[in-house]
C-alpha cells in the first residue's frame, strides 16, 4: 500500500471547486410562502433599490412575491440536487462490486482512461501517481490527490462517460467507483461498495489539504490623506500580453461607431495561428522568420510583392507558398499584418 505525501501547499480552492460545483441553491422565485430568509420588499422594509426594468405590482400580502417565475417542483429540484457529500449525504440506494465494475469500466471508460487507469494518450490518468505531488510533474489522480471517495461517485455519476454523461445506473456507478478504488490500491478485489460504506473509505490524501491562511488582499485600505485618484495611471494591462482579443473593445467615445483601432498584436496573432507551422522552422522550404539571410533577397522585392505572394500564394524556387497560408478565412489586411510582423523580425 502506498502512502501519499502530505503537507503539499495546494490552495484549498482546488478542492472546494469540486465540491461546490454540485451544491444546490434554491431559487428565490415565485411564492416562497413567507420564507423567513431571503429578501422581502414591502412597505415595512426600508427599500433597497433594485434596478429592474420590469417592476411587477408588489403584493404586500405575499412576502417575497415578485410576480415572475414559478415555484420549483420537488421533481425539478431533485433533477438538480444530485451532489454527494463526503459524509455520504445524497448517495442513492445501491451497491456494486469491483468484479462488476471491471467489465463496465473496460467497456465505458478504458478507451480514454486506460485499462489500468493509466490514461490513454493525453486523456486523464485516474490511478497511481502516489508520492508524486511534490515532484516537478505531480500526477494528480483519484488515489494520489482526491480527499474523499464521495467525489469519485459524484463526478462519475454527474459527468462520465465523457460523451454520454448521466447514462449510468446508480448500481453501475457504485461498481465502477469500486473498481476505480481497486485500481488505486485503496480496496481489495473482493470489495463491494454500498451506500453505507462509501463515506467510511479512507482516501490516501484525505489529510493533504489545508485552509490557505494567507489573506485574500495584502493592502490596507487607505482612509485618509489618500492618493489623488487622478494621479493614478494604468501602466500595464493584460492586452500587453497579446492574449486578449482587443478588437472587441469599444471605447466610451466611439460607442455607436465601428471601432477600427489597429490591434498592435494582429500580425503576431495571425502569424502564430496561420503561418508559424511552416515559417517557424522552415517546413516545406518556407523562409524561417528571423533568419536574415533567407529574407534579404525577398525583402528587396518590396512589401507589395511580399504581401501579394502571401495573399494569393505562389510557386517559388524553394517551395509552394499556399494562398494565405491555407487559411482563406483571413482578410488580406490580416495577412499583410502577418507579413509585416514576419519581415520586421527578419530585418531587425
Amino acid at each position, binding site marked *: 500500500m502506498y502512502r501519499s505525501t502530505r503537507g503539499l501547499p495546494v490552495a484549498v480552492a482546488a478542492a472546494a471547486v469540486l465540491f461546490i460545483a454540485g451544491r444546490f441553491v434554491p431559487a428565490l422565485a415565485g411564492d416562497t410562502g413567507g420564507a423567513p430568509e431571503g429578501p422581502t420588499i414591502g412597505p415595512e422594509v426600508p427599500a433597497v433599490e433594485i434596478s429592474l426594468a420590469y417592476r411587477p405590482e408588489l403584493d404586500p400580502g405575499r412576502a417575497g412575491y415578485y410576480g415572475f417565475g414559478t415555484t420549483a417542483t420537488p421533481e425539478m429540484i431533485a433533477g438538480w440536487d444530485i451532489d454527494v457529500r463526503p459524509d455520504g449525504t445524497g448517495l442513492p440506494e445501491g451497491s456494486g462490486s469491483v468484479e462488476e465494475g471491471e467489465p463496465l469500466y473496460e467497456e465505458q471508460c478504458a478507451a480514454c482512461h486506460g*485499462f489500468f487507469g493509466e490514461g490513454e494518450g493525453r486523456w486523464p490518468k485516474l490511478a497511481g501517481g502516489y508520492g508524486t505531488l511534490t515532484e516537478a510533474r505531480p500526477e494528480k489522480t483519484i488515489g494520489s490527490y482526491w480527499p474523499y471517495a464521495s467525489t469519485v461517485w459524484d463526478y462519475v455519476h454527474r459527468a462520465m462517460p465523457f460523451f454520454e454523461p448521466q447514462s449510468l445506473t446508480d448500481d453501475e456507478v457504485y461498481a465502477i467507483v469500486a473498481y476505480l478504488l481497486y485500481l488505486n490500491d485503496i480496496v481489495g478485489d473482493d470489495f463491494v461498495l454500498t451506500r453505507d460504506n462509501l463515506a467510511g473509505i479512507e482516501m490516501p490524501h484525505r489529510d493533504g489539504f489545508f485552509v490557505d491562511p494567507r489573506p485574500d488582499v495584502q493592502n490596507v485600505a487607505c482612509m485618509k490623506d489618500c492618493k489623488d485618484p487622478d494621479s493614478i495611471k494604468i501602466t500595464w494591462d493584460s492586452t500587453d500580453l497579446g492574449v486578449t482579443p482587443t478588437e472587441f473593445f469599444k471605447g466610451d467615445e466611439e460607442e455607436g461607431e465601428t471601432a477600427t483601432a489597429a490591434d498592435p498584436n494582429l500580425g503576431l496573432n495571425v502569424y502564430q495561428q496561420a503561418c508559424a507551422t511552416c515559417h517557424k522552422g522552415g517546413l516545406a522550404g518556407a523562409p524561417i522568420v528571423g533568419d536574415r539571410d533567407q529574407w534579404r533577397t525577398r525583402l528587396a522585392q518590396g512589401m507589395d510583392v511580399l504581401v501579394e505572394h502571401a495573399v494569393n500564394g505562389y510557386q517559388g524556387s524553394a517551395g509552394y507558398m499556399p494562398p494565405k497560408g491555407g487559411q482563406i478565412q483571413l482578410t488580406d489586411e490580416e495577412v499583410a499584418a502577418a507579413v509585416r510582423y514576419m519581415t520586421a523580425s527578419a530585418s531587425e
Partner: protein
Amino acid sequence: MASGIRIKAKLTGDQVEVKTLMKHEMETGTRKDSKTGETVPAHYIQEVKAEINGNVVMTANWGPAVSKNPYLSFNVNGAKAGDTLKISWVDNKGETDSAETTIS
C-alpha cells in the same frame, strides 16, 4: 497487493490478448535532480518475461528509453482459458517483481 504489476489476459478465439502495467521508476541515468543538481542513478527494467503454465512465451529486453510505469500489450496464440499467465521483470539493480493471473 504486494505486486506492482497488473495484468489482464482475455481469450478471443485462440488468441490471448495480454495487457500489463508495471510500476517502475525507469530512471534513465541521465536525469538530474532539479533540487540537488545530482544525476539520478540509472534504474530500469532490463528483462520482462511472460510464462504460460511455466513455459516462457515471450522475453523482452528493455533499456532506459522505456517510460516510467511501462504499459505493455501483446497477443499469444494457443493458450486456453484457465491457463496461468505469469509476468515478471528484472531490473538493472537485480530487483524483480512478478504477478500471475488466470486467462479468462
